């Protein structure tokens, strides 16, 4: 069962020039849960994740992670937060010039995680965890989209983070691969006991992995609750959203 609140957004504001993304974002992330954030394209779901680990600075409000205020931290101070809260980027963000093994070792080397032999063992271990054994010496350019996502996930979990942020983990993948990624998210949840925050548009992912759902709508979090609560919510936008491809196509739905 989800535990105490480990990350909290309080009245957060964020704008890019004249484009206001958040005007009072309030959200809590509880230990052990899988929180899914949904919302229309360009509503700022990824911005929310990036603000949590300091990749983007909030314009106002408060963001805390493990009791520490993130908004005022320097890059050096953020290293500790980023070792506990890891992020899987939308395109994987694997380093093209490096092999799979070098990619996965990257955070281990940066944090002086262990001896070279221990790092090699860790690479093998995490690749097995994401069902990708034996690809250590391949370059990212030799991998398919789904394989890249899984290798990126292996890199994300290499440092044994407590929270994993998934930025659209299934976008652009075929249905079989989507199911495989969803299965991986669940498996990591069970085996590693991590807290997961998943940003997605994919309703299969929402209903497969989610404990709690948050909807980003009109510059703030308009709904939080379970997927079943979302289905029966009287907010029409949310009901249509969770219907996925089976919803109605209304021009006045905004």
């Amino acid at each position: 069962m989800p535990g105490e609140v480990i990350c909290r957004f309080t009245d957060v504001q964020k704008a890019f020039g004249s484009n206001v993304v958040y005007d009072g974002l309030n959200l809590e992330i509880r230990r052990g849960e899988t929180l899914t954030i949904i919302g229309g394209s360009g509503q700022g779901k990824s911005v929310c994740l990036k603000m949590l680990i300091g990749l983007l600075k909030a314009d106002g409000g408060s963001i805390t992670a493990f009791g520490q205020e993130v908004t005022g931290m320097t890059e050096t101070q953020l290293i500790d937060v980023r070792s506990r809260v890891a992020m899987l980027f939308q395109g994987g963000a694997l380093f093209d010039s490096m092999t799979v093994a070098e990619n996965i070792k990257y955070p281990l080397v940066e944090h002086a995680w262990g001896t070279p032999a221990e790092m090699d063992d860790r690479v093998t271990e995490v690749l097995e965890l994401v069902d990708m054994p034996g690809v250590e010496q391949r370059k990212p350019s030799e991998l398919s989209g789904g394989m890249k996502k899984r290798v990126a996930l292996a890199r994300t979990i290499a440092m044994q983070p407590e929270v994993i942020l998934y930025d659209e983990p299934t976008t652009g993948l075929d249905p079989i691969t989507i199911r495989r990624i969803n299965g991986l998210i669940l498996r990591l949840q069970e085996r590693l006991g991590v807290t997961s925050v998943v940003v997605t548009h994919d309703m299969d992912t929402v209903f497969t992995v989610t404990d709690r759902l948050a909807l980003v709508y009109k510059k703030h979090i308009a709904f939080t609750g379970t997927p079943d609560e979302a289905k029966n919510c009287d907010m029409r936008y949310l009901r249509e959203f969770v219907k996925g491809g089976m919803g109605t196509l209304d021009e006045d739905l905004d």
Partner: protein
Amino acid sequence: MLGAFFQSMGEIVVLTSQATRELFRPPWEIKLWIAQLDQGGVQSWSITFLTAIFTGMVMASQFAIGLEPFGASLYTGKLVALGIVRELGPVLTALLVGGRVGAGFTAELGSMAVTEQIDAIRALGANPIRKLVLPRLLAMVLALPLLTVMADLVGCAGGIFITMAEVGITFRFGVEQMVETIGVADLLHGIGKSAFFGYFIAIIACWVGMNTRGGTEGVGRATTRTVVWTSITILVSDFFLTPPLPGHLRLSPRFASHLRFAPHLPRAPCPTPPQSSPKPSRKTRPPAQMPGACPAK
């Protein structure tokens, strides 16, 4: 427009200070530094060589023709040497290398920025300035002066070959004339400037690359912007860098004579004509005597 310019300047200054801070923070990423030195410096030798030799040859050819009516063709080597060592060597090398390496830096960092690889470096607990900017900055500040030295040598050699063909001097005379003409201060002037050019190329390329937005189209735009900005910066800064550098310092006559380089001494002795007399002029009229030129022997 002006506000954006000053904001860019401010961000470049901040990036420089961050990179400088990382320079003094061990452990140093020597492997990354060497890789960038190879990519930016060693792999630029061929383009530098070609540019320098043809520039030297063209300059010599033009000066030989232009000085002939004044009977001053023998001074072609001096003009070529000074022109290359003080200006064309550093500036043309910087423009060429800036185009080649600067565009490469921006394209690489820009691609990393739009595919979130720079964000990933930060998210994985590393510092992108240490990993990406510092190695490139060091590589260019070190490599460009070395490439400039090569350009000076090759350009002067090209100048000597053409002067030999056009004016009829010997190779030995050409070399001695250039050595006599070029002072330590001239060399330092050119090499010192090139270190600044290296800094400008790297910092502009890295800053533009890291701030690239807008997918592959954005990478293309950023790369073009880098080439334009580095070229303009090199040309404009060349003007401002010229007065204060050691090229304008006067060496003491005693020191200069000791070194046998006397560029700024009261008039160096006239060059001794080569054993074989120069080719007869293509024009029949005798050369005019230039005020202050060496009397014909």
